[in-house]
């Protein structure tokens, strides 16, 4: 061990790296807690990669074998139940953490110049996280996931001109079949991870380059009081706090996986009627509920098309936010209220959907 450090030092710039991290500082103020959601999302992404790789050792992506292979994993493979449950729970926590990160960045106005690209890469990463959830949902090939995927992919058909082509592309045919499973599996384990890894690297590089943003209200208060904003060294202060959050999330994951193991349900039967109460994962519920309440036609145009169009415009507006909103107190107030409105709408719709599904 004493000889290992010099050996490594000779070959890797370890000391330089450690010195850089010690010199790097992170602002420390009343809203610092929200900084940790980015790290938590990254930690959960790492867990997804690890548990996903373990599941790949036994999972077989075909309509004939997918369900049985997952059943084998959770009943026969040592700790298979734990790995699958952690994968499923971590996916949900990752979506929740990514949303919390996005809205905290929005409300703290951290998207402002020069962090426009950090914001854009973050929004794309959130969309990729949702795509991970959508593509992974079908993989156990159970009844609920099969019909939810059928309903979910149907929504794409409302997009004018390319809608039907889009549905065929997602399904690998006219209906959800084994071809859809194989296709979504390919997206889930190859295309999306490759894109996500590249974007995470870019996102981290940009965060490293520009540092953590300080909210305008904190900057203003410090200026008014003639104080400088406190900062803590990244190593060890911030990293240890990050580690604390990760460990707490790990404990939560272990508890959820043990006391509420993710259900497998019944195997999908494409020829059976859709069971009652089919609905998507909780993070798509707001969109699902919105489509349920939209009238069939609005001024002669399909209501579903208008709703899907509005959601698409909302996503585009979120993506281009740093370029649309100027850095003025008035614009920041507009962004704050728009964000609160969007969050309130999504929360209300999710609540309605959950209340509607109760017996």
């Amino acid at each position: 061990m004493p000889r290992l450090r010099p050996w490594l030092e000779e070959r890797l710039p370890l000391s330089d790296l450690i010195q850089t991290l010690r010199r790097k500082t992170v602002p420390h103020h009343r809203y610092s807690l929200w900084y940790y959601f980015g790290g938590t999302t990254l930690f959960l992404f790492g867990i997804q990669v690890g548990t996903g790789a373990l599941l790949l050792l036994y999972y077989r992506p075909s309509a004939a074998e997918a369900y049985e292979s997952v059943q084998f994993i959770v009943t026969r493979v040592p700790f298979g139940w734990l790995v699958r449950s952690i994968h499923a729970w971590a996916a949900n926590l990752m979506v929740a953490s990514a949303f919390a990160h996005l809205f905290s960045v929005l409300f703290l106005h951290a998207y402002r110049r020069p962090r426009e690209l950090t914001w854009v890469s973050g929004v794309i990463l959130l969309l990729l996280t949702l795509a991970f959830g959508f593509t992974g949902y079908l993989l156990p090939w159970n009844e609920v996931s099969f019909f939810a995927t059928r309903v979910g992919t149907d929504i794409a058909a409302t997009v004018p001109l390319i809608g039907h082509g889009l549905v065929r592309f997602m399904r690998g045919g006219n209906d959800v079949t084994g071809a859809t499973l194989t296709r979504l599996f390919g997206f889930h384990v190859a295309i999306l991870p490759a894109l996500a890894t590249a974007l995470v690297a870019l996102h981290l590089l940009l965060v490293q380059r520009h540092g953590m943003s300080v909210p305008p209200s904190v900057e203003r208060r410090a200026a008014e009081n003639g104080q400088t904003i406190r900062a803590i060294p990244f190593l060890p202060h911030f990293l240890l706090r990050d580690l604390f959050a990760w460990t707490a999330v790990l404990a939560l994951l272990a508890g959820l996986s043990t006391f509420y193991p993710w259900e497998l349900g019944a195997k999908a039967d494409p020829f059976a009627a859709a069971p009652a109460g089919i609905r998507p994962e909780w993070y798509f519920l707001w969109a699902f509920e919105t489509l349920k309440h939209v009238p069939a036609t609005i001024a002669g145009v399909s209501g579903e098309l208008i709703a899907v169009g509005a959601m698409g415009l909302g996503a585009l507006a979120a993506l281009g936010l740093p370029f649309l909103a100027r850095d003025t107190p008035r614009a920041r107030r507009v962004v704050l209220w728009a964000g609160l409105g969007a969050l309130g709408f999504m929360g209300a719709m999710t609540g309605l959907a959950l209340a509607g599904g109760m017996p």
Partner: protein
Amino acid sequence: MICGRARTMAVLCVALVLVASHVHAQTAGDAARAEFRDDVHAAAGLTCPACHTDGGYAARPRTAIAPLCATCHSDAAFMRRFDPQVRVDQFLQYQTSTHGRRMASGETRVATCTDCHGAHGVRRVRDPRSPVAPLNVAATCGRCHADASRMRAFGREPAPPHDWSASVHAAALLKRGDTSAPTCVACHGSHGATPPGVTSVANVCAQCHLREAELFRASPKKDIFDAIGQAECLVCHGNHRIEAPGDAWVGVEAGAVCEQCHDGTGDSGTIIRRMRTQLDELSGAASAADAVLTRAEHAGMLVDDGRLALRDAREQQVQSRVLVHAFAAEPFSTAATRGLTSVRSARDAGEAALRELQVRRRGLAVATLLILAFLVTLGMKIRRLPPSA
């Protein structure tokens, strides 16, 4: 003067009667025409004179109705034009039925074709609106056979339709919509309706309960029942009010079916008691295993192997109940033992899952303690860090 007034009154009365009868005839005729529009015969292109051959529209004598229908329905060459596979033996069967024989002897209160099928609104049997469709036929028979005053004239009880309504067969047909469940005609026949005799009742039940009938015929009970003139299945199960059988039927104590003939002494008593013990043991063990598996499932464990074993046990339980009809210790005992073995496998799988759950929870408790210890250490380390810049 008085004579003239009386004459006028008489003319008026006659006129009123004529008008009233004309109105009635018109109303009855309209109703018949309206009904006939939806009649299977109208759909086949037949018109009123096809049946009203004499040109009159007065009601035909009841004894003449079946022969009239038979002019077409017993003519294979004629009926083939409408349906190549249609049966043409209805009238022949009717003549052998209790209804037909009594009608031939001049008793016109018994059923004839139009009583069950209707006169002008006849529909195919498979049409759910037909009075003889599977779901309606019991009510149609019940119109007469549940009528106490009508049945009293023939010295019959009006109970069978009510009894059938309380049977497992009625529940299957009317509650579950299982149209394969037997109704009156399945056992008595339709056109040839007659009560099955003592010797043929087992054949009637065997149309569906084939395995039970085979076992019974091969059992020593068959010869005994034949010798004492007992109607096989009916002795234990009854006829119209056939209730769901239970394990408690097997036994020599009061309330059990076997107790009607067996007093519990001798080999038969021993075998009956052993059968009952095994049936109870299997039923109790299956319920207990089901409870263990359910507990494991509610705790989030997958116990498919256990469920498979329990399904096998349930099948063996059904087999054992069927094998009671062999009235012998074997092969009943083999099936019951096999069922108990499967139940044990199911229970073992459930208990193994619950043990595994405990191991998981203990593992989580240890892991949580370690994680908490790490968190506390981290927290202390963070507090001891030098103040920020």
